[in-house]
């Protein structure tokens, strides 16, 4: 029998439990000591490779007695399994650490500007008109629109604004040339109400947002072109109380809990006519009872005018071919710019039409 080759022939005691335990412990220790993937590769070769003691032991196992071979095989398999598990666990640890190190190195300043393109915004008037429209759409009302160059009949006559009414003066109205055209730039969105009554089946519940025109010089509180939203409801049995309910709802949605006041006024197209006032958003009414704290916003009245309203004048219904004995209705109209001033504190009307992007962006969450 030749002498055992120390390289190929493991010593017989290698299959002894104690010897295998020793080899396994050495291997696990080497795996644990591996600090890099390369270390780990070397450890794998040294302890589980073909020429490692455990590898050589695997070759040598074939030379054992069948009786011994089974026991030795089981022992060796268990030992190799332990080493392989240690290798896999260490490999996972090392790759997690490597990933963590890479991610740590990749840290960025998350406060750097991210959206590098231009930042847009709708005009606050447009956005507010949509909001106002939504309040009514949610109540089942529809949104009606009409032309801005309008026939005088639609803008005035049908609304009971007779040929001699002061509102028709050139000082208030922009007329289309020549005068015989009988066309104007609509002075309110009320002609859309007339158009709706002429074209829609009853009952009618509509709001008309849009641009209107007055012959006003352009200054901090006047612009020749501005926006209104008007509402009209014509149905059986409508009364002033329904107008109040509708406007209170609108005010509650737009101004969250503000007090309103409705007081008699005059418009040719409504009878009774009224103005709706909001509690002054600056002094909240305190200036009215306290002369030492005058309020410029409400002239110390405690209230600010928001819009006009009333019960539709039966003459308007008649001009649209609706039987005033059967139907009645109410109408109201507010300046959108005015509403924006109340709601968002815009101070100068000029800012609304000069196109400075800072005005539009102010409500769009753009940082300075």
């Amino acid at each position, binding site marked *: 029998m030749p002498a055992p080759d120390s390289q190929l022939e493991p010593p017989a005691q290698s299959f002894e439990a104690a010897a295998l335990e020793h080899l396994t412990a050495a291997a696990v220790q080497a795996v644990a000591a591996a600090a890099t993937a390369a270390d780990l590769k070397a450890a794998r070769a040294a302890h589980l490779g073909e020429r490692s003691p455990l590898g050589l032991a695997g070759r040598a196992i074939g030379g054992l007695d069948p009786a011994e071979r089974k026991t030795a095989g089981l022992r060796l398999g268990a030992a190799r399994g332990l080493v392989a598990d240690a290798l896999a666990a260490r490999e996972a640890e090392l790759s997690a650490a490597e990933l963590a190190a890479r991610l740590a190195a990749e840290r960025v300043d998350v406060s750097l*500007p991210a959206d*590098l393109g*231009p930042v*847009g*915004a*709708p005009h606050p008037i447009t956005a507010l008109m*949509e909001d106002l429209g939504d309040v009514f*759409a949610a109540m*089942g*009302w*529809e*949104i009606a629109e009409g*032309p801005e*160059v309008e*026939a005088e*009949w639609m803008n005035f006559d*049908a609304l009971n604004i007779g040929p*001699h009414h*002061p509102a028709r*003066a*050139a000082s208030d109205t*922009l007329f*289309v040339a020549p005068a015989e*055209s*009988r*066309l104007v730039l609509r002075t309110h969105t009320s002609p859309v109400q007339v158009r709706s009554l*002429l074209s829609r089946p009853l009952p009618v519940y509509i709001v008309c947002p849009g641009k209107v025109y007055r*012959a006003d010089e*352009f200054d901090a509180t006047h612009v020749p072109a501005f926006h209104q939203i008007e509402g009209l*409801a014509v*149905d059986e049995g*409508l*009364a*002033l*109380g*329904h107008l*109040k309910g509708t406007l*209170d709802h609108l005010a509650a949605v737009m101004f969250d809990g503000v007090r309103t006041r*409705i007081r*008699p*006024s*005059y418009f040719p197209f409504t*009878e*009774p006519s009224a103005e709706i006032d909001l509690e002054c958003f600056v002094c909240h009414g305190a200036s009215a*009872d306290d002369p030492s704290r005058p309020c410029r916003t409400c*002239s110390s*009245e405690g209230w600010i005018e928001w819009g006009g309203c009333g*019960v539709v*004048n*039966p003459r308007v219904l*008649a*001009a649209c*071919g609706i039987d005033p004995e059967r139907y009645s209705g109410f109408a109201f109209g507010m300046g959108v710019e005015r509403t924006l001033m109340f709601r968002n504190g815009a101070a100068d009307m000029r800012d*609304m039409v*000069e*196109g400075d*992007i*800072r005005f*539009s962006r102010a409500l*769009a969450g753009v940082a300075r």
Partner: protein
Amino acid sequence: MRAPLSWIREYARLDAGVDSRQVYEALVRAGLEVENVEKVRPAAAGPIVVGRVLSCVCEPQKNGKTIAWCRVDCGSEHNASVSSPAGAGEPASRGIVCGAPNVAAGQLVVVALPGAELPGGFQIAARKTYGHISDGMICAEDELGLGDGHAGILTLPAADDAGRPLVPGEPALPLLCQSDDVFDIAVTPDMGYCLSIRGVAREAAQAFKAPFRDPAARPASAPVLPAGLPVRLETAGCPLFAAVTVEGFDPAQPSPRWLAGRLQLAGMRSISLAVDVTNYVMLEIGQPIHGYDADRLEGGIAVRQAEAGEQLVTLDGTRRSLDPSDLVIADGSGVIGLAGVMGGEATELGPTTTRIVIEAAFFDPVAIGATAKRHKLPSEASRRFERGVDPAAAASAAHRVAALLTELGGGRVTAETTAGAIPAAPVQTIAADLPGRVLGHLVSQAEVEAILRASGVQVAADGPRLTLTPPTWRPDLRDPYDFAEEVGRKIGFDIIEPVVPKAPPGRGRTHAQRLRQSLVTALPAAGWTEVVSFPFASAADLDKLGVGDDDERRSLVLLANPLADTSPALRTTLLPGLFAAVARNRSRGLDDVALYEQGLVFFGPAGQAPALSVLQRPAAGELAALEAALPRQPRHLACVAVGQWRPAGWAGPGEAAGWRHAVAFAEATARLAGLAVERQAVDQPPWHPGRCAALTVAGQIIGHAGELHSAVAQAYGLPDRVAAAELDLDALLALAPGPGRLPPLSAFPVAKEDIALIVDEATPQAAVAAALREGAGDLLESLALFDVYRGAPVPAGRKSLAFALRFRAPGRTLTEAEAAAARDAATAVAVSRFGAVARIA
């Protein structure tokens, strides 16, 4: 209308405890638009007393002035002067230096004693001046803040208005200036009767259920006077004319302080006793009064229409050419007044007038309004006549003037003439429950009747039907709903229960409205900021844009009364407004801007709308004619971007705004509407001739996008390289498809094939892409241009276009051969159509 509370209280007997805030609230509740409550208080404060000038020694000064050294009895309480005591043998008094020329011994004057404060924070103290200790100040009107009189010191009458003699030492301010609260009321056109104390007091009395005394009521025992000036009414525009004659009036008499003070509180200046009295009665009763110098009248008076060519010099010194629709007052000499608007110069009350004819008439509101407008002469009188005055108060107003003139200026009332009659008020019948139905608040028939009666309406009830005759001062009460409103004003709108009405189920926004609403968020999200410009324009704008003579944008709608001569028309394009907004931003240091605007543009010519009745619905043909007269006014959407679209920065180089941003804006808009846009190169002002795309949907041009022409940018003061697009939004949204269909998705593998083709430089990639799509057939899932290459080995004047094609079959995996065949078929079409050379097989 400015209404002092003290004056209102004269006719509305309000409880003493009612303050101006309560009156304000009551008037507002009744429908009066009270704009302000001015609290008028004396501007001077402290010891200001009545004094009697005992002696007055004139002492010329070296500076040329003459001062008066006065001993003034200021009452026993104030005569114990410490600074300038009375000398031995002199009566108790204070020594005061006075510089006014009109001071004289015996006068009753107003003395501000040390410790008083005059307007402007002027503190009175004893001080040494002109060699004397002046121990107080004798005041002029303006120094007390009472008016602007500074001709000399203010002298007081011997007794107050009630006839009580004034006593030295008594407080002077209460004699001169009453504290008062003045309501500044913007009277609406339907409440003309509240352009008077009478009307406001009536509303206040009704609100507080307080007794009301009518200043226009005449005592039944008024003496009958002989007939005076002959008056002929020759026009239906004047149904009633009262004239009362006063003789022996002393024109030198001044207006008493109470009269001038009341006028001042009401916002009018004191002019002369006669004029002040006419104004006072107008303010009190609401009846405009005109006074004529009777000695300057020739013969009787006629009220008639003006004749063509007639002229009149009005009180303001202006010569006016009259129109036949003007109502005039004429005498033997011709026209002497513009009825109800302004009198003539020739018969004006003057400093020598002793015989006065007082006119109180009723004129047609429409005629007066038209005349005031025609001659640009809004006056206190025309404002009242336009809204309708009370014809039943005319005669009593004239008599009230006469009585005040004779009481304050002497003379006697000698004659009166009343021509015409009070027009009958229209009678209306309503159902007693109408007010409750209109208001949405139950108002009993008894309450309706009581309210209307309190408002002066004659009520005759026939069961539930009420026959109503409005009072003469309420021309606004005409239709049934007018009476409903009157009831509402009196019960107060605040007590009406609010009820939200139940609208029938709605369809929500229309499809176009929803698409426009989504633009409100989509365009800003794409980087665009919305602006709103004025829609006024001029031909000069179009010249700057380089728009040709036959371009539709030249069809301007002109305004008859434009606000500025520089913009006499309405816009046909949104671009100039956007350019102005860009320039404004740049002038404010905001150089990189991307703006958009949406709004109507207007294309002439405007037609002629028919004049239609308002008594019934117009016929279909009439409405069609009306619509046809309107100019076409589509809604446009436009954008302009300048400067850096994306600035250079930490993340890399910047990107300048350019033509493709304008195109992307248009495509984003179209995509939102479910539409794809096709582009063709066109030369369209104001764009760059080589960088403008006509945008087409379904063969219809819906707008243009590209880079602005350099010359146009320069004309508008903009930098070069401006991106701009303008779309007809209405036309685009009208093309928006219906709901659309969702296809099944194939999960089989995709086959990718690239194609590179060499084509002429002038060949648009879109045309090549279209050819490839056509040739590729149904298996093509997508096609995208991924490279454009020029240079070797591609010959000069040609370019290489590289496309990535993706093929997929719905129910199977494509074979390589199938994908290659589809690719080759695509290439073949492009090769045959454009002479393209396939670069890579």
